[in-house]
């Protein structure tokens, strides 16, 4: 072995905080983090990465803390954990060299988005005559007149499969590092319930301390709108795929068809959720926030909002000459989202769920 790697600043901060928290324990009623912390006397890097990902950033412990800055101990658990979470995404990134994408992640996601949109526009523009791009198309196959079905499916399929693989590999690596093992069905079910309801943003019933010291459920509801909106959009695409291949029905579909309804409701929810969360983030008290990770968080929210917004615009203007380049722009944003997913804030849902599973496993004492 060569030199032992120095712990990062985020890791050092998180360990400092957890060692003091573990001698205090006043916050045990807030969320899953503190009961999980109490099962330890000392904290390995793996323990801290796990606890950081278990933290939902509700900020309840920050405002309740007798040792929060300007106290010389400067305990700031939400801030320390937010910084450490991003390091844990990098540490478990797959393939390994992609880890560096998590530094200056806001810039990375923004550049990637710009490139993806430009690329789709350029390719569409290069392959199609201006006449095709700027003419109104209607009836079955209208979209594919602009971008060929093959190009769309092969690109989307390849990028999507790669994103899935990369996220699965990352999450599996994180799971192994936090202790590994096979969780019981009960632990899985409880964790899934917690993840889907965001129970840990409930703060004991009154919501979380976000965007400031007062209690509010707003962040939880906006996140639900965004996440479930995204899932509805995903369902819309899945149904459309089945329509196309199994039923031979070719897009665009009726306004009252299942894919369009799912996509419309999902898109509107996503737009409400992302814009609401962006608005809260702008208002938010900077004290418990980790500045270094804000860029990546803003970039992902804006990208999701752009996907939703261009999708909805495409629906509204699909019978007009604007459809051609709107489709290209929308697909550019979707491409960017899936390219960025394993290397951005997007991954937090999987790490968070894995951490919740671990916490239920440990609480039951059903795994080592």
């Amino acid at each position: 072995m060569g030199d032992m790697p120095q712990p990062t600043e985020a890791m050092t901060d998180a360990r400092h905080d957890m060692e003091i928290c573990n001698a205090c324990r006043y916050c045990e009623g807030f969320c899953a983090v503190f009961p999980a912390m109490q099962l330890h006397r000392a904290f390995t890097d793996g323990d801290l990465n796990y606890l950081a990902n278990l933290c939902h950033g509700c900020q309840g412990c920050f405002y309740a803390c007798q040792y929060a800055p300007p106290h010389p101990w400067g305990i700031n658990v939400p801030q320390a954990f937010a910084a450490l979470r991003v390091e844990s995404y990098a540490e478990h990134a797959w393939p390994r060299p992609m880890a560096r994408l998590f530094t200056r992640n806001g810039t990375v996601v923004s550049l990637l988005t710009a490139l993806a949109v430009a690329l789709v526009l350029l390719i569409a523009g290069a392959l199609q005559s201006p006449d095709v791009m700027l003419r109104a198309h209607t009836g079955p196959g209208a979209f594919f007149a602009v971008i060929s079905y093959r190009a769309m499916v092969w690109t989307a399929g390849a990028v999507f499969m790669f994103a899935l693989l990369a996220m699965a590999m990352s999450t599996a690596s994180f799971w192994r590092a936090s202790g590994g093992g096979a969780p019981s069905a009960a632990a899985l079910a409880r964790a899934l319930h917690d993840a889907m309801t965001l129970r840990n943003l409930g703060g004991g019933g009154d919501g979380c301390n976000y965007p400031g010291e007062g209690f509010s459920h707003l962040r939880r509801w906006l996140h639900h709108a965004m996440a479930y909106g995204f899932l509805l959009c995903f369902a819309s695409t899945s149904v459309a795929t089945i329509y196309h291949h199994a039923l031979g029905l070719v897009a665009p579909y009726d306004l009252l068809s299942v894919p369009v309804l799912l996509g419309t409701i999902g898109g509107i929810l996503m737009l409400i959720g992302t814009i609401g969360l962006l608005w809260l983030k702008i208002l938010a008290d900077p004290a418990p926030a980790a500045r270094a990770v804000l860029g990546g968080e803003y970039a992902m929210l804006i990208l999701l909002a752009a996907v939703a917004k261009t999708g909805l615009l495409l629906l509204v203007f699909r019978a007009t000459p604007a459809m051609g380049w709107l489709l290209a722009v929308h697909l550019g944003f979707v491409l960017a989202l899936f390219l960025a997913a394993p290397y951005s804030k997007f991954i937090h849902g999987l790490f968070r769920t894995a951490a919740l599973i671990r916490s239920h496993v440990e609480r039951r004492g059903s795994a080592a």
Partner: protein
Amino acid sequence: MADLTRPYDVLVIGGGNAALCAAVTAREAGASVLLLESAPKAFRGGNSRHTRNFRGMHQAPTKVLTGSYLEDEYWDDLHRVTGGITDEPLARMTIRVSAEMTPWMEACGVRFQPALSGTLSLSRTNAFFLGGGKALLNAYYATAERLGVDILYDAEVTNLLLDDGFVRAAEFNHRGFPARATARCVVAAAGGFQANLDWMRQYWGDAVDNFVIRGTPYAKGRVLKTLLDQGVAPVGDPTQFHAVALDARSPQFDGGISTRLDSVPFSVVLNREGKRFYDEGEDVWPKRYAIWGRLIAQQPGQIAYSICDAKAFSLFMPSVYPAMKADTLGELAHKLGIDAGQVEQVVADYNRAVQPGRFDSTGLDACRTEGLDPPKTHWARRIDEPPFYGYPLRPGITFTYLGVKVNENARVLMADGKPSANLFASGEIMAGNILGRGYLAGFGMTIGTVFGRIAGREAARTARN
């Protein structure tokens, strides 16, 4: 915004639990209220910031308390810890009123942990604040602001102008500038004097330099002093304080709860000269932790060292500072800065005196020493399994007992026994009326809440008549 040109109905001096309960209650009763907190906003709340629970009488299980805890049992507990240094009518009144408090606290936004969670041994008698005392204070401050209580931070009252028991005005420093406030009635809720080391030095000499003050550095006792200097009746022994054993590496102020060490019952404790001085296993720790501050305060240099081995290390709460750790007792003694030969000798003598018995960390077990002075009467096991662990301990002062005398309406009494016309007191500044010695977990918050409510109500009533 505070308007110092007009007289308020009620002036509340202090910014902790007792002050907030008085301010909110007086404002609810329709009084105009000004609250002066000596700390800046970030450190508002006095010692309440470091508290965690409220001891409440109850006839039947409630949302936040299990079982029942009736007046007589509560009184017996109080009588035992104070050794009778209390005022029975005031104490029983406090106990009875405590039964009505939690719904009002919840209406002010205070949130409790559900019963049956948290520190189980106390869930019957004590309601735990979700997030602790600072969360409780945040709720009270938010309520006070919403109701229109005017609050000034960084406003240390230096003098009350008393005229035959009638308060004419309060002089204070606001962000370093002298200021003056007038009010029809005043509630003094400014705490004890434990953070005033010069005052403490009068009784304890230079030993105070080795004391750790667990709570707020703003408890200077200036309001208490100005009142006692102007003929208010004192209560409580000025030389006495509540103290626990703390990690000697703690900051001098404001280390709060987490610097405590629970290692004593599973250790031997030596003083600077390497001698044991008290039975470490006398009783379960919740019943004994409060005597160890005093015991250490009486040792040379006000320092002691808790030493245990690997099999004991996981039996107590993790410490805020890492334990000193070594593979031999001699090396550990060296790290702790005490004589290695002496430590090895004392531990060897102790190990020889340990009797066989079944060890039980959760109750009074049969593991004791024989022929050792002082004995260790429970949890005595040989210290022989490396690595060895040690902690330096110092006395950590929680609060002082000296206060002002009050009646059942929280009205301050003058030395001649006459009640003041317009001065009331609540919280630590008058707790010595009821808790003259010892301590009951969560009882300081009970006194502060009950007397805060009474003082606020009576002050508002007096001001508006």
